[in-house]
């Protein structure tokens, strides 16, 4: 089956920032992404779990498949939001079916 080269970007970010991140992605014309819930985690700012939160606290994971040539635009947009906040950005090489979808 024919596949196309892509980058898979995974951004773990604080939930209150989710809308700001997706807005920034939109502005950078990145309109394809999937948001996964996060149950808990640990990092430099300590350990937390979903059930220990009140309100909109906690984190989400945003997964983005993108053409390799557009990666830097995406990272710039994401970085502007993530920069001062708690969060992690990772990138892996991927293949996708159906290039028209991204």
């Amino acid at each position, binding site marked *: 089956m024919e596949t196309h080269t892509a980058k898979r970007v995974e951004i773990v970010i604080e939930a*209150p920032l989710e809308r700001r991140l997706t807005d920034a992605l939109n502005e950078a014309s990145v309109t394809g992404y999937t948001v996964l819930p996060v149950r808990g985690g640990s990092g430099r700012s300590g350990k937390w779990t979903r*059930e*220990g939160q009140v*309100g909109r606290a906690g984190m989400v994971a945003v997964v983005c498949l993108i053409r390799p040539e557009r990666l830097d635009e995406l990272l710039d947009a994401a970085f502007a939001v993530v920069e*001062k906040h708690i969060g992690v950005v990772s990138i892996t090489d991927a293949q996708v079916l159906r290039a028209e979808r991204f």
Partner: protein
Amino acid sequence: MTEILSLAGENLISPIILSFALGLAAALARSDLTIPEAVAKGMSIYLLFAIGFKGGVAVSTHGIDTTLILSLIAGLILSFGLPLLAFALLKILTGLSVVDAAAVAAHYGSISIVTFVAGTSVLEGRLIDAEGYMVAVAAVMEAPAILSALWLVARNGGGGAKMEPGLIRELLLNGSIVLLVGAFLIGAITGQDGLDDIASFIVAPFQGVLCLFLLDMGLIAGRGLRQSRGVLGAGAIGFAILMPLISASIGLVTGMLIGLSLGGVVLLMILSASASYIAVPAAMRVALPEANPSIYLTLSLGVTFPFNLTLGIPLYLAIAQAATGG
């Protein structure tokens, strides 16, 4: 004094407070007892809807008091003003940075609706009436404190405060405010008839739901305290007890000046004394990301919330009774 103590004692052995204590103890003992997030959010929606609705019905039956406008203005001023006081006090008592101190100050200018709900249920238990529109005052007091905090940061050279265009809209259309005010309006429009329709949902089981909700609050507060052990000095903890006392006094004077009833005065004291731990923390993550969440959450949720719930509310009630002669 003995009366205050007996009042406090009575308050302390209510199912509500004991449920909170159970949650706190379970979390401190590292039990895996948890209430699913969705259920906790469902209960908070229930409580906001019920308290807003009942406030609206009270307004519809008692008519709009002349002090309504005054109360709303007072709420606004308190929410804008108390953070300045809190900030000054923090500068004296603690070594927190400008950004951290401002973030904490925002929490103490804003309110905790659960503390408010617990207060109304103590008043109901003692058959003390309060102005129904106090829930509107609560809504009005949620957001302004955040603006004061951002202003404090800007003024004290804390650079990082971002007053994004979207933020104010977000604050005003915050889910809790919309639900509280919306339910208030529905209650005011449908009045006693509306209440009769749904009383067996929003009145009868209210206390019980509050128990389970406070159990969860206890769990969360306990887990927070456990994780942030050592983060806070004695000065900060002192602040988290002293500040509500000062705020309550200011609320007392304000409430008496604008002519609220005994119940209304107590609720204004509680609103002033309580500190936010839902709306303001979320806003701080957006507007003051450099501020350390475990400082402000531990103070508001770990210290001030339990203090108000257990000792604060009966104390404020006793003081208000003494002051108003009620």
